[in-house]
């Protein structure tokens, strides 16, 4: 019976090889060859050119900032959700699932309307007598777009790992005389590390590789590494160069995966 059942994994195995592994191999093939098909490291080395390295460094910088902001905003939110009760399932749905039914591009574009010089936020600021905010088409707007889009990916793993903490442990700490701050630093924070690591990965990777947010909120003047790669495929038709730069990008993704695997052995802080 068991041997027969094993065969049921065969269709998926074939699918995974054909549509997950072979496509990745294709990126390496294109990235390590030139247009004539000869082996070369050119495409990968081109990351060191001024234009490409500037885009990569800016991407790293903005995605790091966004990840930190997501963590700072998301951790208290996850704690609030845990405190509200084990029954906050419907709130979770409202935070994660429902917004996805409003198209991601439209949601991001809506920030243009909110952020514009005469936009909603500036009108409110004016009424309150505060100076207006001119961040549209700047790196600030891109960071805001990243935080807005990826915050849910931070909160869910954090929430999952926070709900798993045995409340008896926290009560014990209180009984032994620890105040809230000490309990948080000594108990809650260390126990939520898998969630933090997983959340950081879930935010950092899409933020590092985005080309849509920078396109929509950065006024198409600010180029991130994602924009550079996208242009190679859709405009320049230089698949070899685009693949080479993707290999560089994958290096960061792999490092991220390894860190996650080391810190989150049991998959505790996973998304699902």
């Amino acid at each position, binding site marked *: 019976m068991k041997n027969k059942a094993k065969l049921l994994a065969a269709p998926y195995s074939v699918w995974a090889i054909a*549509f997950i592994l072979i496509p990745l191999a294709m990126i390496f093939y294109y990235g390590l060859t030139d247009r004539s098909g000869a082996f070369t490291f050119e495409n990968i080395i081109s990351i060191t050119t001024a234009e490409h390295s500037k885009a990569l460094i800016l991407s790293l910088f903005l995605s790091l900032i966004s990840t930190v902001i997501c963590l700072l905003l998301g951790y*208290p939110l996850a704690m609030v959700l845990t405190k509200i009760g084990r029954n906050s399932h419907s709130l979770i749905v409202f935070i994660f699932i429902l917004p996805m039914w409003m198209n991601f591009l439209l949601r991001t574009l809506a920030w243009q309307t909110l952020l514009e010089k005469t936009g909603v936020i500036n009108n409110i600021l004016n009424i309150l007598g505060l100076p207006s905010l001119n961040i549209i088409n700047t790196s600030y707007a891109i960071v805001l777009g990243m935080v807005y889009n990826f915050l849910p990916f931070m909160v869910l793993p954090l929430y999952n790992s926070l709900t798993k903490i045995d409340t008896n442990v926290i009560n014990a700490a209180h009984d032994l005389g620890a105040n809230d701050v000490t309990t948080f630093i000594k108990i809650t924070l260390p126990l939520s590390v898998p969630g933090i690591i997983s959340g950081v990965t879930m935010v950092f990777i899409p933020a590092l590789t985005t080309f849509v947010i920078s396109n929509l909120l950065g006024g198409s003047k600010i180029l991130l590494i994602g924009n550079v790669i996208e242009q190679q495929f859709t405009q320049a038709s230089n698949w070899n160069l685009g693949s080479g730069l993707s290999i560089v990008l994958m290096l960061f993704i792999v490092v991220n995966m390894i860190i996650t695997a080391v810190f989150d052995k049991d998959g505790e802080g*996973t998304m*699902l």
Partner: protein
Amino acid sequence: MRKALRRFYLILMLIFLYAPIATLIVLSFNSSKTRAKWGGFTFKWYVSLFRNSDIMEALYTTISIALLSSIIAVIIGLIACVGLNAMKKTSRSIMMGITNIPMLNADIVTGISLMLLFLSMGLKFGFGTILLSHITFNIPYVILSIMPRYKNINQSTFEAALDLGATGFQAFFKVILPDLFPGILSGFLLAFTMSLDDFIITHFTKGAGINTLSTKIYTEVKKGIKPEMYALSTLIFVTVMILLILINKPDKDDNLKPYTPT
């Protein structure tokens, strides 16, 4: 005091997450064509929406892709889960590792890699290539939703069914499947939502002449978004919101009760 602070923070974050959505809903009632100024309240975009064949076609493509890809992903994923559970631990972890790749990898890399694959296979870019891509990124969501359920199934109930004369198929459908059902359902819903909201992977695998709502919006960004698009998004959003509220039936008392450790 503390409770009020928590409530306040939660409301603040919900405002942050929902401000753009509220903006889009307001824009769908704006009679001025540009989003920059308010021209008065109107329902006209909701009417003209249904006469806009471009948008209707994109909607049809989007929903067909989402429905087909999530159904096929559920079938392949469910069968795979049965097989994976019969495997030895090492080969199972290898397969699960591969399953994780599309989830952990960047969408742009997944999109490019599939584009290169379809190019080298000489496939014609269109509905078929989008569907294949969506199935590919949907299967992991299905598998990761079903697998945890499998751990809780009591293998003896399955064996008991066999002892009582059920065939393997009967035992699976009568005993195992009902236990897996919540996982299958959530996998399906997750896959459907992901497919609907995807832009990046579709962008690289769609080819000319076909558009999903996402790619249609992207081409309109430079020219200005048609107000009908806001109307359609509002309709979809409100429908789903009502459905989710009905499904979840948020019992107010239950939700707001402070958490008491047991």
